[in-house]
């Protein structure tokens, strides 16, 4: 029966062309998006953000006081003072205030070298999130909330971090393995920008980032590594704010038994990356797919051909399911072809224009590609089921667009308030677009993770499941109606 329905599909030239149009739109829109994006840096190649040991684009900018540790050893210290400034925060944006942003951090770190993006493990006191053990940019584990004493120690291949409230009773917070050779051990200070998202009267939100700076005074220092503390601003871009020029420069000062570090930046995964550009064509392609999927069934009702179909396959539920399998299958195949063509082409154009395409990793790439194909297939089945339910082509197409394309656009094009947009992306068949989220929303980085930035309220699999549920629900309704109907 599936074979017969496939023959039906391929023998109508309009439908095959419709699907080919979807492929062309997918590739074409991706190409246009990439061709229209330029990044230029004063006639030279733009610096790309560093890539961390686990393949992600990362932010690695912090004040670092370090010694070299050749074998085993440890460093213990207390964070005596932790303070900072935030420049021109809301509501009036008219003064520089004392304070720390929630993820400002000061603590102890073991890092393989001073190059941005190199492996590290750190135990840090944060302004609002207690003590954290973080390593290799993407991993973050919570430690005690009230501890001020920190210790990091290396033993063979392992670096282990501890925290304590009193310097006597220590808790192990985390361990990172795989270390070899000499490492840098020392103090780190980082203070990410103060970010606020405020509602845009035109819908969506406006994101602002303001310079901040943090200072920490460490005392009770015990270090097995000898020598002087050397200071480096890791990942420095050479630019200085007025605050740094006129009031307080980043750097290190050492007292008789204290060490003070002042600095800005963050040691974290990069978060300003968007949806992979080669997937930008999915939406226009979906429009063409919806039309084909609806017509695949409504044309049978319009022509009376549905009777011939039911004479050949009197089991109506099975007939509807076979057609659903065919429209889902051909859409999946076409979408996969589109992705396979678009990915290298669009990525090449995007890079050639000086843009940085953040690496996603093989598994994520596979999920983005297969997920997008599955999303388009499931959405096609939704549209087809609507067609079977309503039997009227135009009505079903309009409704299919209203259920899938419109919610996605409203949520991602900064038209609706963010929360409303997120509900649309939880409840409507557009939830499946979650498969296109290229990067996780990291808790340890404060960022307005909105749909407009490519962050979806549901996990990829959950989002796709919502779309599939819609498809199954609509198909069930269509089956119930067809089973009862006189044809």
């Amino acid at each position, binding site marked *: 029966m599936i*074979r017969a329905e496939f*023959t*039906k599909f391929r*023998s*109508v030239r309009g439908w095959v062309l419709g699907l080919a149009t979807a492929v062309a739109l997918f590739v074409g829109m991706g190409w246009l998006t990439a061709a229209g994006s330029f990044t230029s840096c004063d006639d030279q190649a733009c610096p790309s953000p560093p890539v961390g040991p686990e393949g992600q684009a990362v932010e690695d900018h912090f004040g670092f006081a370090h010694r070299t540790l050749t074998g085993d050893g440890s460093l213990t210290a207390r964070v005596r003072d932790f303070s900072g400034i935030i420049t021109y925060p809301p509501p009036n944006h008219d003064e520089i205030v004392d304070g720390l942003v929630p993820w400002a951090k000061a603590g102890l770190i073991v890092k393989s070298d001073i190059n941005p993006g190199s492996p590290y493990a750190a135990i840090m006191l944060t302004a609002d999130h207690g003590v954290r053990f973080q390593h290799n940019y993407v991993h973050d584990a919570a430690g005690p909330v009230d501890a001020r004493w920190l210790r990091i120690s290396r033993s063979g291949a392992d670096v282990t971090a501890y925290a304590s409230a009193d310097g006597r009773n220590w808790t192990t917070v985390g361990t990172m393995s795989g270390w070899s050779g000499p490492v840098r051990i020392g103090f780190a200070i980082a203070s990410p920008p103060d970010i606020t998202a405020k509602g845009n009267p035109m819908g969506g939100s406006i994101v602002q980032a303001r310079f901040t700076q943090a200072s920490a005074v460490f005392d009770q220092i015990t270090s097995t590594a000898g020598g002087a503390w050397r200071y480096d601003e890791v990942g420095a871009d050479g630019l200085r704010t007025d605050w740094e020029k006129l009031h307080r420069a980043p750097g290190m000062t050492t007292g008789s038994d204290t060490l003070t570090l002042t600095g800005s930046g963050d040691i974290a995964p990069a978060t300003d990356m968007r949806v992979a550009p080669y997937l930008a064509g999915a939406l226009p392609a979906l429009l063409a797919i919806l039309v084909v999927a609806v017509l695949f069934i409504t044309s*049978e009702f319009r022509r*009376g051909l549905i009777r011939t179909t039911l*004479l*050949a396959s009197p089991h109506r539920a099975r007939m509807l399911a076979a057609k659903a399998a065919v429209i889902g299958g051909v859409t999946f195949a076409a979408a996969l072809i589109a992705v396979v063509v678009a990915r290298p082409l669009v990525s090449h154009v995007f890079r050639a224009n000086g843009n940085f395409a953040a690496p996603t990793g093989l598994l994520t790439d596979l999920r983005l590609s297969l997920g997008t194909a599955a999303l388009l297939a499931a959405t096609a089945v939704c549209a087809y089921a609507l067609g079977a339910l309503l039997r009227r082509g135009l009505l079903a197409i309009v409704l299919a667009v209203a259920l899938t394309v419109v919610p996605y656009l409203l949520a991602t094009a900064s038209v609706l308030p963010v929360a409303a947009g997120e509900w649309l992306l939880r409840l409507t068949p557009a939830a499946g677009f979650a498969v296109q989220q290229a990067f996780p929303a990291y808790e340890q980085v404060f960022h307005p993770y909105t749909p407009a930035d490519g962050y979806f309220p549901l996990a990829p699999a959950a989002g796709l499941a919502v779309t599939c549920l819609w498809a199954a629900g609509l198909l069930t309704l269509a089956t119930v109606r067809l089973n009862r109907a006189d044809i």
Partner: protein
Amino acid sequence: MDATIDITGLRKSYGPTAALREMTFTVRPGQVTGFVGPNGAGKSTTMRILLGLDHPDGGTALIGGRRYRDLTKPLEAVGALLDGTALQPSRSGRNHLLWLAQSQGLPASRVDELLDEVGLAGVARRRAGGYSLGMRQRLGVAAALLGDPPVLILDEPFNGLDPAGFVWMRDLLRTRAREGRAVLISSHLMGELQDLAGHVIVVDRGRVVADAPTRAMRERYGSLESAYLELTR
């Protein structure tokens, strides 16, 4: 398979319209059975119920003792032509038959055999939207014959045929009946059936008003035409 059609006490209303009231008759193999009556008498409705397309309000419609929807490869048991114009215009006639054949697990060679048989081999790869009414009717007949079924059910098969088509259709139906198949054809024109049907069932307003061999009807009323006019007054 037993090629007998049994319609028993069939009732069907569409909203306020009572299309069938107690429709009962039997169609036996080996002859053409004419199913005649004025427009709106319930012929098409009876056939749609028989073919599992419409749900009856009461009664049964069985083919060889089974409901249509319980047949496993229905096109090998029953060949039906309801509306020859029901085609996807951009699909070729050959592809139309091909998907039907595939749905029953029949080989593609069977499609080409039938295209030859109904005289559409020359236009088989053209879009069906360009076919004349007669060509569509031939394609519909080809679809009905695809599974070589022992039962044929045709609703107004002479519609849109030219005189040559009439002759062709008569020969075809007569041959199939002589082979021992059951052939049920509806019509509201008696003249067409005069020499073709061995048996006629006359219906009016959803009921059978006469059910007799053609010869008996002719003997009693003179001609089928006058029998019809008398019975459906």
